[in-house]
C-alpha cells in the first residue's frame, strides 16, 4: 500500500518516454541522429572517416565557446564579444611567439588578455549595472581593434621557436581525433560537473532565474557575474590559441561574427535567453547539429547560399519547440 507521503514524494514523470522527452536536449539529439542516419543512407561520402574528421574539427571551435556562452545565457546575460576575444587571444599569442617567446608564456599571456576582456565586461555589467548587450557590443568592437593595433593588421604565419608545437596542438590529431576535440571534451565534462555540483554552478542558474531573489539570499551576485563573463572569455581565449594552431596563420578577421554561430548553438542546445536554463551538453550538441546541417547541404550538392536559411530555420524551430514544450507543462 502506498501512503500519502509516498505519493507526494514520487516525481511526476513516470514513463521512460515522458522522462526522456522532458530532457531539454532530447530533441536535439534526435534531430542530429536522424540527420546523420539520413545522410549515411543518402550519400556515400558522409560516413567516411575523412568527412567525419572534418565535421568534428569544424564544430569543435564553436562548441567550446558555446559552453562559455551557455553559462552566460543561463545567468540571464549575453556575451557578444567572444569572436573579438578569439582574435585578441590569437594575436597576443602570435605576436609574442613571433617575437621569440615560448608557447607556454605566449599562451598564458593570451589567456590573460582574454580574461581581462571578460573581467572588464563583467565589472561593467555587475558593478555599473550596464546591460550586457551594450557592454559586450562595445568590447566586440574594442577587442578586435586592439588585435589590429597589436599586429599592425598583418597576417602572421611564423611563430618562432615553438612553431611546430603550436601547429601540432591545434592541427594535429591523436587516436584519429583532432586535438581541439580533446580540449572540447575536457571542457564540456568540467563545465557540466561544475554547473551541477558546485555552489558557483547553482548560483549561475539562481541568478538567471531570479536575480533579485539571489541577492536577497545573500549570494555575492556581483562577484559571481564577473567570474561568469571571465569564464566565457576564457573559452574564447582557448579557442583563439587552438584556432591559430589549426590554421597555421592569423589575420585580424579571425572569429568575425563567430558570436552569432555560438549563440545559435547555445540556443539550439536549449539555453534560454531569458535566463535560468542551458547545459554544456546541449551547447555541444547544438554546435554539432549546426555543423551536420552545414555539412549535409554541401554533400547533398545544395548551394551554400541556402546554408543561412537552413540554420536560421533551425534556430527558430528550436526556440518555438521549447516554447511549445513549456506551454504544455
Amino acid at each position, binding site marked *: 500500500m502506498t501512503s500519502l507521503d509516498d505519493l*507526494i514524494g514520487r*516525481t511526476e514523470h513516470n514513463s521512460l518516454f515522458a522522462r526522456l522527452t522532458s530532457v531539454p536536449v532530447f530533441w536535439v539529439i534526435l534531430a542530429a541522429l536522424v540527420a546523420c542516419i539520413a545522410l549515411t543512407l543518402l550519400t556515400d561520402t558522409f560516413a567516411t572517416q575523412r568527412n567525419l574528421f572534418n565535421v568534428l574539427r569544424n564544430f569543435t571551435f564553436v562548441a567550446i565557446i558555446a559552453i562559455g556562452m551557455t553559462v552566460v545565457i543561463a545567468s540571464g546575460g549575453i556575451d557578444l564579444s567572444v569572436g573579438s576575444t578569439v582574435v585578441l587571444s590569437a594575436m597576443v599569442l602570435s605576436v609574442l611567439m613571433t617575437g621569440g617567446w615560448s608557447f607556454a608564456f605566449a599562451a598564458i599571456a593570451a589567456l590573460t588578455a582574454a580574461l581581462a576582456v571578460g573581467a572588464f565586461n563583467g565589472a561593467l555589467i555587475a558593478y555599473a549595472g550596464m546591460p550586457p548587450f551594450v557592454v559586450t557590443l562595445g568590447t566586440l568592437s574594442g577587442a578586435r581593434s586592439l588585435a589590429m593595433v597589436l599586429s599592425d593588421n598583418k597576417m602572421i604565419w611564423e611563430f618562432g621557436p615553438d612553431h611546430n608545437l603550436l601547429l601540432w596542438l591545434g592541427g594535429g590529431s591523436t587516436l584519429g581525433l583532432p586535438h581541439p576535440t580533446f580540449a572540447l571534451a575536457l571542457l564540456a565534462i568540467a563545465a557540466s560537473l561544475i554547473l551541477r555540483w558546485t555552489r558557483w554552478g547553482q548560483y549561475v542558474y*539562481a541568478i538567471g532565474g531570479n536575480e533579485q*531573489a539571489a541577492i*536577497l*539570499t545573500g*549570494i555575492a551576485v556581483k562577484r559571481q557575474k564577473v567570474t561568469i563573463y571571465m569564464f566565457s572569455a576564457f573559452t574564447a581565449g582557448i579557442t583563439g590559441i587552438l584556432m591559430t594552431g589549426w590554421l597555421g596563420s592569423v589575420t585580424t578577421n579571425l572569429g568575425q561574427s563567430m558570436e552569432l554561430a555560438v549563440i545559435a548553438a547555445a540556443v539550439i542546445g536549449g539555453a534560454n535567453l531569458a535566463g535560468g536554463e542551458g547545459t554544456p551538453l546541449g551547447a555541444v550538441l547544438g554546435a554539432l547539429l549546426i555543423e551536420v546541417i552545414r555539412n549535409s547541404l554541401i554533400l547533398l550538392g545544395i548551394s551554400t547560399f541556402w546554408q543561412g536559411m537552413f540554420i536560421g530555420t533551425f534556430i527558430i524551430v528550436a526556440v518555438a519547440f521549447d516554447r511549445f514544450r513549456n506551454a504544455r507543462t
Partner: protein
Amino acid sequence: MSRLKLENISKNFGAIQALSGVSLEVAPGEVLGLMGDNGAGKSTLVKIIAGNFPASSGEIRIDDRSTHFNKPLDAQTAGVEIVYQDLALCNNLTAASNVFLGREAMRRFGPFRMLDYPTMNRRAADLFKQLKSETRARDVVRRMSGGQRQAVAIARTLLSEPKIVLMDEPTAAISVRQVAEVLDLIRRLRDRGISVIIISHRMPDVFGVADRIAVMRRGRLVASKATATSSPEEVTGLITGAIEAA
C-alpha cells in the same frame, strides 16, 4: 517574557518622519497582524526589524537582549527571518534548491566540495512534512501553486530555526483555497513557538489567524489589542482615523 520588544522606535528619512515612537511587544508563539493604510509605516517598521536599515532612535530587544542590526544578515543571525511579498524564489530551481539557496549543504568528494542533493532533498521534504504541505522537494517551483510556493518560502525561513518570522502580504494575489493553505502554514509556525508578524491589507485573513492586531497610522502605533476584543469595523476606523486610538 517577550520575544520581540520595540521601544520608542523612530525613523526619519531626512525631513520625513516615517515612524515616531513606536513601542510594541510580541510574545513567543504569538501571531501579530500589522495593519495600516499605504504609507502608514508598516513596511518601514518591518524593514527595521529585518535589518534592512537601522532605526533613527529607539531600541529593539529580542528575548530581552538589546540588539543592533546593520544588515539583514545580522537580523538573520539573531533569529529574524522574512518572507518577501514576491517570495523571492527562483522558478527554474527545485523546491529543495530554493530552500537551501545561499546556504547549500555540501559534502566532501576527495579534494572537492560538492552539493549534497540527497541531504537537501531529505531535509526540505522533512520541512514540508512539518508544514503539512503537499510540496515535493524535487519539483521545479515553476510548476507549483501559490500555496506551495508560500510553503517553499516559509520552509526556507525554518531552515535556521528562527524566533521571529516576518511576512509581507502573504495572502495577496492568491486564490481563496490557497489563502486557507497559507493561513494553515502560519498556524504551524505559531505551533512551533515561532512569533509571526504579518503585514496584510486583507481584514478577514488577519482576523482569521492573528492573536493580536496592531494598527499604524501616519507613522504612529494607534492600537495593539487582542483580536478577540476587536472587530473589523473598529480596525477599519483605526486605519482611516475615524477612531483616534484604541
